[in-house]
């Protein structure tokens, strides 16, 4: 019998994996950063689901606190990553990590 928590956990895991796939395959830095955010969302999903672990109507507040902290961290690190990506784009003309990504980037028309 699949509980609500398990459902959330599975959905979160799915999101995490989707994000991971994007991080691996998308050459453009912006895509990678966005994919990271999708993965983060997956993790938060799991955390939110876990809040239901305690019996009774009131969920456990601690996972919520964690999610909030996590969102703060993710927002700030995303901002930093974006700034860095922009700087790289300004300096190099492309926003990729590996030289081999340049071709891939051109192919996908990022």
């Amino acid at each position, binding site marked *: 019998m699949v509980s609500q*928590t398990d459902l959330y*956990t599975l959905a*979160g*895991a799915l999101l*995490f994996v989707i994000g*991971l796939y994007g*991080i691996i395959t998308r050459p453009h*830095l912006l895509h*990678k*950063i966005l994919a*990271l955010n999708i*993965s*983060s969302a*997956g*993790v938060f999903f*799991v*955390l939110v*689901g*876990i809040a239901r*672990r305690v019996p009774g109507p009131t969920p456990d*507040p*601690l*996972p919520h*606190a*964690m999610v909030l*902290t*996590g969102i703060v*961290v993710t927002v*700030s*690190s995303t901002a*930093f*990553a974006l700034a*860095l*990506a922009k*700087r*790289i784009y300004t*300096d*190099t003309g492309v926003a990729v*990590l590996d030289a081999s990504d340049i071709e891939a980037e051109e192919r996908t028309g990022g």
Partner: protein
Amino acid sequence: MGDWVTQQLPALLILVPFTAAPFAYLLGAGYDRQTALLSAALTQPLAAFLALTVVQEGPVRYAIGGWGGPLGIELAADGFSATMVLVTSVVGLLVTVYGLRYFGDLERYRFFWPLWLFLWGSLNALFLSADIFNLYVCLELVSMSAVALVGLTLRREALVAAMRYMLAAILGSLFYLLGVALFYGAFGSVDMATLRETVRPDVAGQAGLALMTAGLVLKTALFPLHFWLPPAHSNAASPVSAVLSALVVKGSFFILVRLWIDVAQPEAFPGASVVLGVLGSSAIVWGSVQALRQERLKMLVAYSTVAQIGYLFLLFPLASGGGQAASDAWVGGIFHAVSHALAKSAMFLAAGIVLARFGHDRLEGLGGLSRRAPVTAMAFGLAGVTMMGLPPSGGFIAKWQLIKASIGSGQWWWAVVVVAGGLLAAAYMFRVVGPFFAREAEDLDDSDLDPGPSPVTMDGAALALALGALVLGVAGQPLIDLIMVGAPALVAGVTP
């Protein structure tokens, strides 16, 4: 007063750098260096004091603002924590001293000081955290400041390296956080002391540990996940490289050790510890082989870090059986972390001087270094002694313990790896040291760029770190005593 300070020590160790960081930023040019120096000069004795307290009175626990778990933040310091805080403070102080003249009052390096203080504070927080979620936050803080420091020079290679580092770091944190979530879901706590009692090797426990381990392994740059480290460490400014190689990678390793040795019992996860050992061994070999192939000094030193990280992971299979061997492995692994921190920072600091003197760090162009910068060359060479694991040095004691643990636990093959790694280290070290004595290459470099003899503080910092690594080899007993204070049950079986 003394008592109060003793109680507040863990908090002070975090607060002092965190407070100094914004001041360094706000005060700006002219005062940022002084602020950093003041902070370092305060933090270092505090760390030493903490170590002393831990040795004398046992592990310390501290709830910030009097708020304990689960919602409040608790700090804890056992021997392991205190050791890491202490080595951070030593390296930190000397890097700070080195940086005073290295960065000078160059405008574009002014962000070094606040970022560095921030990093220092984060590291202390990480080492003193008592719960695994707090560790996540600290990991992120450490990563962000480290990434920013890598990009400090704004050189193109540095920026790309920083980006790569950043993505890897965030991803690693996410893996870790997912694991934390699973742990919390399964065991209802993030406090490590509680988890120690409740953690079970069921599906959630296994999965959580697997995810956390993967994320941390990525952040520690264990082979084959070392892809971000060489570019980041070699392209950063040298004091930054020193801190990254010496301390930052040890942060995630610290959590791994906490999780595996302290919280979860490795015998509950038998295959995994062997996997970590195999990866560690591969790192030793592969990192050394790559170091041998490098043509630039800092790349070589960075790959040396890849290799040296491998030794740390031998701790897991070696300690998994408990008993005397586990105890030996515990001391060996942590001793290695400490001596590597000292020696590697010495090497990067020396490399920084080399870069400044020659305008480049291509190995074949470093001829005559021992004449032009004898102290620098000596610092590098002495640090190399530890890297090779030759006596008398901390590296020797560490390897000694690891070999002892391998043979003592009947897993002699790790000993072979340790010895082979020492030989490989010797091979790449002498690729560097050999040319120092060369004569014919002197004409090659452009002496117009040579800024002249390096300041005493820079040479002195590098030399002091290298000597520190050596001193550990003969006078390391106090450190060993410290490491064993409050050691996890698995490894505390018999005091070596």
